[in-house]
């Protein structure tokens, strides 16, 4: 989700929906953050503020949780998020070449978002589909048995 379209209303809507679904309880913090992160693509500072007020929980403690888990991001992400599985089973079947090809093709390093807001490149822990490694996930599409040669073709499917 591009950054510029994120106005205040959208954030409030996302926060309200998440709290309505899970309840305004400190115990539900991770499900709430997960949902907001999923709706908005990341956790903007304003979203954390609002959740903090609603749950009566200090912002610092929210930020502590948000920064602890890999899947929660406090930085904006691109329209398409590429997750590269960096686990050993993918590594031993040629993951490194794929990773290098991805970085080169996109001109991005790990955790970076392209200036045009199209791509974000991140690594992920094992996705459990090791039988078809090396594996990447773009948004929700899985690509297995990848090689460096196939990377440009896969990326070309997205606009």
């Amino acid at each position: 989700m591009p950054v510029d379209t994120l106005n205040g209303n959208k954030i409030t809507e996302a926060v309200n929906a998440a709290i309505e679904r899970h309840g305004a309880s400190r115990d539900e913090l991770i499900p709430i953050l997960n949902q907001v992160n999923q709706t908005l693509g990341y956790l903007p500072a304003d979203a954390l503020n609002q959740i903090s007020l609603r749950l009566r929980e200090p912002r610092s403690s929210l930020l502590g949780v948000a920064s602890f888990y890999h899947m929660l991001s406090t930085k904006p992400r691109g329209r398409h998020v590429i997750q590269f599985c960096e686990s050993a089973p993918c590594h031993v079947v040629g993951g490194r070449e794929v990773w290098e090809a991805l970085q080169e093709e996109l001109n991005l390093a790990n955790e970076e978002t392209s200036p045009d807001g199209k791509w974000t490149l991140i690594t992920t822990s094992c996705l459990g589909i090791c039988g078809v490694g090396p594996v990447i996930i773009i948004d929700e599409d899985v690509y297995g048995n990848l090689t460096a040669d196939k990377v440009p073709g896969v990326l070309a499917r997205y606009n």
Partner: protein
Amino acid sequence: MKYFRSHILVCVDPQCLQKGAHEILDALQDELVAEGLIDEVQVLETSRIGGCAEGPEMMVYPEGVHYVGMTIDDIPYLVEEHFLKGRIAKKFVHTEVTVVDEELRAPTAKEIRVVLRNCGKIDPENIEEYIAEDGYAALAKVISEMQPDEVIDTVLRSGLRGRGGAGFPTGKKWQLTRASSEPVKYVVCNADEGDPGAFMNRRVLEGDPHALIEGMAIAAYAIGAQQGYIYCRAEYPVAVSTLNIALRQAREFGLLGNHILGTDFSFDLEVRMGAGAFVCGEETALIASIEGRRGEPRPRPPFPSVAGLWGKPTNVNNVETYTNVPQIILRGAEWFASMGTERSKGTKTFAMAGDVKHAGLIEVPLGITLREIVYEVGGGLKDDKPFKAIQIGGPMGGFTPASILDLPVDYESLTKAGTMMGSGGMIVMDDETCMVDIARFFMEFTQDESCGKCTPCRVGTRRLLEILTRICEGKGMEGDIETLEFLCEQIKTNSLCGLGQGAPNPVLSTLQYFREEYEAHIYEKRCPAKVCKGLIRFEIQPGTCTGCTVCARNCPVNAISGERRQAHQIDPDTCIRCGICMQVCNFNAISIN
């Protein structure tokens, strides 16, 4: 003979041909080529599958799935679902079929399926299919005929030990939780299967969720809990949705909720999803995460069985542990104890990956040797390359060489050999793997996943990684091996939780079994497996080089020089070891030294 993991038989009867069977065949070929599956999946023509009326149609083996009614536009979806993701593309399935994918083959002679018995056999989204396989019979037996102490006694006698890796006797754990006088207790399932390469639990969660629910309900009855949680990692969205469907159906059937089967026993379950943190597989970190906090471990004791979730006594077991329980109740402790060794009973699931022919899930009786697992169950190494090492137990496990392939797989033997049972990841490596590089790779993982709470793990893993990186870059120094050993010992003894205590294992075990590779890297500045870029040189064999200039034209840094039709040279100082020259050379004139 060429080996294919799947065969697609496309019907070419007249009726199907009329509906575009040839176009389907072509589209399949193209898609398989595009996805790089053409060497794994064979497409054949056949006749009389029996669904021509709904054609075009095809059969996929070994699963025996009968697909009908697709158009060429559906082929990319079908190929992706079935052959990449390993899921049956339900909307094209002709009749009710058993669901098996390549992750889970038909068992070999050495295998026994207890935990995986229903996976791929039943529809996980239909509780009636589970019930038809004696599902919930154990729960019914327990709550109508057995006292909680009898249940615990049965589990104790079976010899079942924790399948999450540490191997603590399950019955003993239940006893401890039951013994507390606190009225509110919890059962928790650790489904945070984070070990790279381990996906046994995912298959159970996605393929037989009711077996887990039943096992947890039995545990709840035995320890006196009314509420339970399944903590599932966020990387498994399919498992979470399957579990939620299963929970809803179990409630509808009165197998969860108030007054289960009309008795006084009430119990309900909730799925909690993680947000991507490996350390949450540690039980105290997992509990912190369910409570909505940072998933950081805390010192034990007190153990969760005394003070766990929200300070209440909590029984935490792994998916596989709970899944064994209904079978133990139904078939008896003696049956379970008849499998395995003196102190390790029953079966264990493993996920085999790496350079092995049949990667995938297996379930074997404990006590089987590693050799039997790799060669008989796994079919040996890809391309019949020599076996170099096997890594067991995930990132906290160790690497063991060919000399201990005859080791029996049980908790004690593996620990003694410098590795561990762990949750069940197994990575097989051939002789093209550099052990220093792979130890560095594992250290990158643990360093990254260290939660940062305690210093030995946070700083220690970082220092280990720095030294290993230096060695791989060819900057290893005299004394590095000794420093590594000293650091490993310190981290092992002083870390708070299992992550830190286990983190040095990949380094220690490679130092123990592959010390000469470290020495070659440090003292001879040589990588025997020719993997570490800082230690290899690309060289052109003057006798073989024809001077065609292809390599020089493709070199991204212009490190190759030479006249046309004369042997070329690579300038090692400019060369970045990208290997492009080797790929483009048509005469195999470039070698790595």
